[in-house]
């Protein structure tokens, strides 16, 4: 149970990523109502491409309803994608359920709420041995004991024999989440999907769990997907951050570059809204309003109704990911080099004159001035 050792930490993005999602899409059907005609769907996740490199932490950041948890469930194959591909070590993962168990040995999911993800009538030992039995990895009783002890050591619950007999209600929130992580590690997966692993925990113990995840990445070379709504903790833990809005990834890039120079207006909005004690003056929110209805998402860029920089083209067609710096790309028309002045024109609104003055992402990377290129 010691893992492959610390040497793997160096080999990050080169070669084939451990897990790759290509054009992953999930549409949930909705019941027919007056507002939703027959065949209407919720566009929960639309055309998401993502790579999880070995020994790397990738963060998915977004508001509630942005589809980030659905994405984690898709990657764990708990739900079937509407379309799109999953590649494990470069090989396509077929949609058949027979290979589900083999897949689960490689990819494990840690859920948000350790108060409900552990079974209250079973002790810690049961939780940790169950996956081994399900995956037919269990040996003799003494081997099982050894595995349990090793797992508890790995998540820093020691001395292990004090915890094996405990029930979830005897553990604090942080300890429970550590048990949930240990359970995920039991089958020695190579990919850990953590869906808001610390948001239910007390502030003072969150960092302990985050540091544990960072540790697992370095020591065992785990590829980690960290799903969160807290962009500051994503910056702390992750190498790469992908920002999701209304079911799509709108910006992704190295954690530092993305938070210091956000290039998508939605990322800028998120950052301006995040609590920041270092802020010396009252900041202005870059955009208002609420996320759109995903049954009938807005045309073009899904952020355009809230975007302070919205142009005519934004309502007409959806922007594609454009690289704005090394490894940092953004799906925003502001970064498209070849727009004509008509496309850059004001959004067709009744009072369309009020938004035309300010069309550069002020705090972020400078976008090409209107008319400069073409």
């Amino acid at each position, binding site marked *: 149970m010691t893992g492959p050792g610390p040497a793997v930490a160096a080999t990050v993005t080169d070669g084939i990523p451990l897990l790759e999602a290509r054009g992953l899409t999930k549409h949930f059907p909705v019941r027919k109502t007056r507002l939703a005609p027959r065949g209407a769907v919720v566009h929960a996740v639309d055309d998401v491409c993502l790579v999880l490199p070995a020994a790397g932490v990738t963060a998915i950041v977004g*508001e*509630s309803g942005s589809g980030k948890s659905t994405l984690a469930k898709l990657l764990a194959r708990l739900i079937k994608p509407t379309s799109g591909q999953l590649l494990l070590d470069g090989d396509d993962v077929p949609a058949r359920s027979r290979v589900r168990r083999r897949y689960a040995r490689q990819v494990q999911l840690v859920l948000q709420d350790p108060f409900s993800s552990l079974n209250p009538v079973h002790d810690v030992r049961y939780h940790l041995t169950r996956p081994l039995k399900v995956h037919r990895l269990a040996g003799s009783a003494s081997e099982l004991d050894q595995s349990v002890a090793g797992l508890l050591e790995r998540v820093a619950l020691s001395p292990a024999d004090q915890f094996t007999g405990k029930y979830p209600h005897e553990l*604090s*929130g*942080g*300890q429970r989440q550590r048990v949930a992580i240990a359970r995920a590690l039991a089958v020695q997966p190579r990919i850990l999907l953590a869906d808001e692993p610390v948001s239910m925990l*007390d*502030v*003072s*113990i*969150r*960092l*302990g769990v985050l*540091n544990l995840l960072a540790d697992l990445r370095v020591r065992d070379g785990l590829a980690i997907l960290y799903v969160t*709504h807290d*962009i*500051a*903790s994503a*910056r*702390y833990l992750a190498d790469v951050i992908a920002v999701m809005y209304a079911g799509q990834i709108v910006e992704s890039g190295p954690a*530092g570059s993305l*938070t*210091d120079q956000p290039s998508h207006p939605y990322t800028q*909005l*998120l*950052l*301006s*809204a*995040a*609590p*920041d*004690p*270092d*802020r*010396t*003056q*009252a900041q202005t*929110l870059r*955009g*208002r309003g*609420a996320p759109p209805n995903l049954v009938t998402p807005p045309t073009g860029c899904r952020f355009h109704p809230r975007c302070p920089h919205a142009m005519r083209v934004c309502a007409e067609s959806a922007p594609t990911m454009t690289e704005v710096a090394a490894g940092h790309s953004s799906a925003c028309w502001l970064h498209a080099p070849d727009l004509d002045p008509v496309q850059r024109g004001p959004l067709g609104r009744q009072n369309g004159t009020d938004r035309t003055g300010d069309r550069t992402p002020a705090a972020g990377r400078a976008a090409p001035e209107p008319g400069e290129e073409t």
Partner: protein
Amino acid sequence: MTTARNSHRRPAPSGRAASAVSGPASRDQPLLEVTGLCVDYGFGQDAIHAVVEADLVLRRGEVLGLAGESGSGKSTLAYAITRLLRAPGVITGGQVLFHTPGTGDQDLPASAAAPWHTIDLLDAGPEQLRALRWNRIAVVLQSAMHALNPVLSVGAQLTDVLRAHRPEMDRAARLTRAGQLLELVGIPADRLGNYPHELSGGMRQRVMIAMALALEPQIVIMDEPTTALDVVTQREILEELMDLRDRLGFAILFITHDLSLLIEIADTIAVMYAGRIVETAGARQLYRAPRHPYSLGLLRSFPALHGPHQPMTGIGGSPPDMRQLPAGCVFHPRCPYAMDKCRVDTPQLLRLHATGRAVACWLQGTATTPPPELALPEPESSATTATRATTQAATPPEATTQATPAPGVGQQAAGIIPSQRSGS
């Protein structure tokens, strides 16, 4: 609601009987003074001491932040102040004084020109409480998302408040006022007919705030008002709230676990741990120069949005079981600086000289030299607050600048020192 109180309640210091004080009310005028408040859950040996000797001062127009983890007693403290505590919660000691213009018995809007009266909320009878609640002290509860009645329209719930407390208003006037209230929090008045399920989470929270402001209270107690909301909505609501505070001049007791948020919006912050207030300071003071190891640990638990990437540690261990609190300082099992004394003796909340702040830690006593990270110099903007001292209940507003603690309470009753809103 439980009103039972044990006999060992601390006697009120002399000169604190309800008395009228005339004169113009300044911004420093304390509205709410909590002294030595103790709340237990249960009786006798098995009682859980949820709040122990809490001292707070809330001033006019101030945002007082109460930070603490779950189970630290911050919500219990708020319920005790408003006397909304349910059994088996028992207030076992302390004093909660509410200063208000007018007698407080009248169900009328407060006018600043009226003489000030002091009401002991823990001694107030049901009629007096009924007149005070919502009228003078309003509450926005933790589960505000679910606090609205799902089978009544928003308008019905808003006018209900007015019907109960403003009998002179007729139906049309109530509806007009309800519409104004909605517009005050940024919701079009035509949403009055909507039911809660037709509103988004942020809008429901706004309706709760509108309802709290319906009678123009002097104090609004907000218990985790934005915790369930997304960051963008949270920020919008906080902006509106601060704007309303500036316009209407009410004071806010803001309870949250998110210290980083509190530092941005609060004037003064009290940090609670395991039922005790361990540090009170101006927001900037606390952020730049924390004095209690727990405050320092909390500040080190929030990853920064800027600057170089630094490994952070948070606080080791986990919050204590309130049924088996450690002896001595409740924080000592998790404290990296714990000394022998900390394991035996409980530190009291002591005012630090010349800094206008208070901390309950043996490291900050005269006998020890605190480690450098707990003895950082005070930030400059707080220099002016150093001269201001805690004012006691009956101190006339004119004399707020140089008051000395009342005899007998000087040691324990270090209240909260007002801070200036730094950076503004």
